[in-house]
Structure formats: C-alpha cells, structure tokens
C-alpha cells in the first residue's frame, strides 16, 4: 500500500473514531448551555488525545507490543488488572451509550421507541465483529462516518461570529452555574480522550505489522486525523450555540438534540443528524467492543485478532459477545441514553490518570521504545491534562449528581 493511501485511510479512521455519541452529546450540551465558551475543552482534549494516539502507535511500531501487553509485562498483574477493571467498567458504560445512540437514531426516523431497537442494533454490531474483518470495520465504517461533515456544513451556513469562537478556545472560569459548567467540561474531555481509542489504535498497529518506518506516518495520522475529528466536534458545539443557546433551550433528550441541524439544513438536517448518530455510534461500538476484547486477550495471553475465525480465538470472541449482550439488555431496561452518555464521559475523565500514567512510564522506558522515547512536551501535556480532567471530575461529578 502506498504511503499516501495509508495516511489517508488512517486519517479517515481517526475522524471516525473521534466523533461518536459522547462527542456529539457533550458538545451539543456545552453549546446549548454556554454558547462558545467551552470550545477550549475540545481543544485541550484533542491535544491530549493526539499525543496519546501518537504514543500508542509509536510503542507498537518500535517495541512490537500493544499497550496492554506491555503494561502486563512491565508492571505485573496488579497494575495490569487495575487498568483492565477501570477501563472495562468505563467501556461497558460507553458501549451502552453507543448502542443507545444507534437505537435513538432509529427511533428518530421510525418513531418506534429505542428500547425496541437495542437488541437488533446490538445483534448487528455483534454480527459485524463475528463475520467482518479488521479492515472492513476500520475503513468501511469510518468512510460512512464522513456523513458527519454535515455538521461542518451546518456550522458554516449559520455564519457564527469568529471572534467569540476564538475567545471560547481559551480557557475561562464560569460566569454562571459553575457545577454544570465544569461537569460539561470534563464530559467533553472524557469524550475526546477515550482510552478505547488508543487501545484500538495500538492493536491495529500490531495487526498491520508496523515497524520503525511507520513512525512518520503515525505522527501525521494522529495529528491530522484527530484534529479533523475535533473540528467536527467543534462544529456540533457551534451549531448548538447558534441554534439553542440564544433561545435558552437546553436539550434534555436526544429528540431535542436532533433538531440541531434542522435550522440550517431543514428536513434534510433531521435525517442527516440521524444518519450521523447511527453511523458514528456503530463505528464507536465496534471499536469499544474490540478494544475491550483486545485488552483481556493481550494482558492474559490469549489468542486474539479480528481476522481470526471466532473459534480460533474463543475467549477473545467471548468477551465482545458477552459485552454486547449485557449492554443491549441495559438499554432495553430503559436507562436514559443521554444521561448515561454524559455521566460515562465524565467518569472517563475521572479515571484517566490510571490509564495514562503507567502508559507514560512505558513511553519513557528505553527497554521498550529505545531511542524513540517521549519528548518532555508530550509527557507534560498528558500528565497536566489528565490530572486536570481527573481532579475537576472528582469535584464536579458528585456535585452534579446531587444537584441534578
């Protein structure tokens, strides 16, 4: 495969991975409640995730280890299990949110309640993993995900005030409702810095047999892909800030969020929103299920691989099968998908240091990355942003739960 094609595909995948139910829901909330003032959270989250994705690709290319594999080897069973449990729980919640997102997209179009859609949608997700190949999932779904560009079109058509947007890109203290402000900020950070994203990326790099030659490609893909994803997320925020904020509307349900694009794009906007929600959640659901199965398999030494027949990687296949079944049932039970999404994103922020700190130690260990160790800027950015996100989440989550 030519280098250019590789970069292009990689970028598409990263965009697809970035914009999912979490990013859509959190940025829509932020725009509706605070106008442009929380754009900085998207920017900060993107900086952090660019570094982390680049690192996970570099670790795979240089050491031939996935993150989980290296964590187990370097830190032993306890630290490994801590990260496995922490992102296992988060992934379960986020997967439920994605299945909820797909079901809601179908509810919007058909009028039939999302609870009826949860099982069919879960089954479809499972079937794609059961029968599909890694490249089908990686490339097919993320190309479809380009429908999300509708948000960019919508944002441009609404002609937003540029200087207010630029001001919003700089962090500021809240002028009103501080708890809601900080809770929304950490939800955005959690949606941007989803650990499943870099676990998935690192496993993909091993499945594609990367070596040191890929370091440049990897850097380009991580930076450009994640930045494009961030631009789409900012577009969602801008549309919400233009459509909802002036009228004081704060969407409490996805049905209301769906009206985002009808203002700039009319009836088509409604269908484009549903399509974007459906496809981006499907892409994320596939990645989360795989990322969790990878984590178990790589840390415990099982056979793994999306291109292997299920019976040749039985325990690996069992993990995603059980996970999808559980989360589908959770949605059938009728948990509010929007609340679940916002909450699980904030929880992601809270647990970030558990994932990022051991990972950073690996990325500075010459036994693993040799001369390709981290630059101090990358170390500092990831430590600062994940600590900040975690501390704000620690305060904001209980306050939000008590207040809401």
């Amino acid at each position: 495969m030519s280098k250019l094609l590789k970069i292009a595909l990689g970028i598409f995948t990263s965009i697809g991975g970035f914009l999912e139910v979490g990013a859509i829901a959190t940025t829509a909330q932020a725009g509706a409640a605070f106008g442009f003032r929380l754009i900085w959270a998207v920017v900060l989250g993107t900086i952090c995730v660019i570094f982390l994705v680049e690192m996970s690709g570099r670790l795979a290319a240089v050491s031939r280890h996935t993150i989980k594999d290296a964590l187990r080897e370097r830190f032993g069973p306890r630290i490994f299990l801590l990260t496995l449990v922490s992102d296992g729980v988060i992934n379960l919640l986020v997967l439920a949110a994605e299945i909820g997102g797909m079901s809601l997209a179908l509810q919007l179009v058909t009028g039939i309640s999302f609870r009826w859609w949860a099982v069919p949608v879960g089954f479809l997700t499972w079937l794609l993993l059961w029968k599909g190949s890694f490249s089908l999932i990686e490339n097919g779904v993320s190309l479809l995900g380009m429908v999300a560009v509708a948000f960019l079109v919508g944002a441009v058509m609404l002609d937003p005030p540029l200087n207010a947007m630029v001001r919003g890109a700089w962090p500021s203290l809240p002028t009103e409702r501080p708890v809601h402000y900080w809770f929304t900020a950490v939800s955005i950070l959690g949606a941007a810095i989803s650990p499943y994203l870099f676990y998935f990326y690192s496993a993909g790099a091993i499945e594609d047999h990367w070596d040191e030659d890929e370091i440049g490609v990897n850097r380009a893909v991580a930076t450009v892909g994640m930045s494009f994803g961030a631009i789409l997320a900012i577009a969602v925020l801008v549309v919400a800030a233009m459509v909802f904020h002036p009228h004081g509307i704060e969407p409490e349900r996805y049905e209301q969020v769906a009206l985002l694009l009808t203002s700039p794009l009319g009836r088509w906007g409604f269908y484009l929103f549903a399509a974007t929600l459906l496809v981006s959640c499907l892409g994320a659901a596939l990645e989360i299920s795989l990322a969790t199965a990878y984590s178990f398999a790589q840390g415990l030494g099982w056979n793994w691989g999306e291109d292997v027949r299920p019976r040749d990687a039985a325990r690996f296949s069992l993990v995603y099968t059980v996970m999808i079944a559980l989360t589908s049932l959770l949605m059938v039970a009728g948990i509010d998908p929007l609340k679940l999404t916002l909450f699980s994103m904030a929880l992601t922020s809270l647990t970030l240091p558990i994932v990022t700190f051991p990972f950073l130690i690996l990325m500075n260990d010459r036994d693993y990355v040799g001369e390709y160790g981290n630059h101090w800027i990358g170390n500092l950015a990831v430590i600062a942003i994940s600590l900040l996100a975690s501390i704000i989440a620690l305060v904001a989550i209980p306050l939000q739960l008590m207040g809401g």
Partner: protein
Amino acid sequence: MEVGRQILDQQLVDKTGLGVGKVDGIMLELRNGAAPRISAVLTGGHLFARRLHPRLERWARRLTRNWGPGKPEPLRIPWSKVMKIGVDVKVDIDAADAMPWEHWVRDRIIGRIPGSGS
C-alpha cells in the same frame, strides 16, 4: 535469576506463533553451592490469581474444577523447551494441547454459535 525477572509476565507463543498464555510463574531449582537455576516456566489462570491474592486463587481453582474444564493445574513448560526469548517467549510445545479454558470456551460456547468457522 535476571532472566527470570525478565521473562515473568511475558507472552508465551508456540512453534507456530499461537499464543499459549503469559509466563505466570517460574520454577527454580536450588542447587548446593551454586546459584539457583530456572527449571521450568509456568502458565495458568490460578497462578495469575495467586499473585493478586490467595483467596482469588481459591476462587479460580473452584471455578475451574466445578464449572470449567477440570483439573486446576498450571501448565509446566520445562526450561529445555524454551527456544527463544525476544518480544515473546517462544516454546517448543503445541498450543493446541495446552489451553484447557480456551478449548472449553470454544467447545461449549463459541463453537456452537453458527458462523464461528468450524
């Protein structure tokens, strides 16, 4: 001994590159008047559990005996079967005979679902 510390928790693969498990433990042979020598590498879920907490090991054993594939003994691979230590630890055994849980899950659950690729 240094080798022991290095290979603990490394991935074990068989001749064909199939994953066998992780190095969950190492068996040392104590010799009079000489440094101890590694006699075997061990792999098995309850060994992993033991390193977390003894109670977890008891649960893991009970699970394997009562609901799982039976005999809860770790797989013992003699040091002479260790072929190469690199990114993974390559061993001269057949993974097909070495993973009771993998086979249990395959035969009882995954293999029974249509399309698993028999």
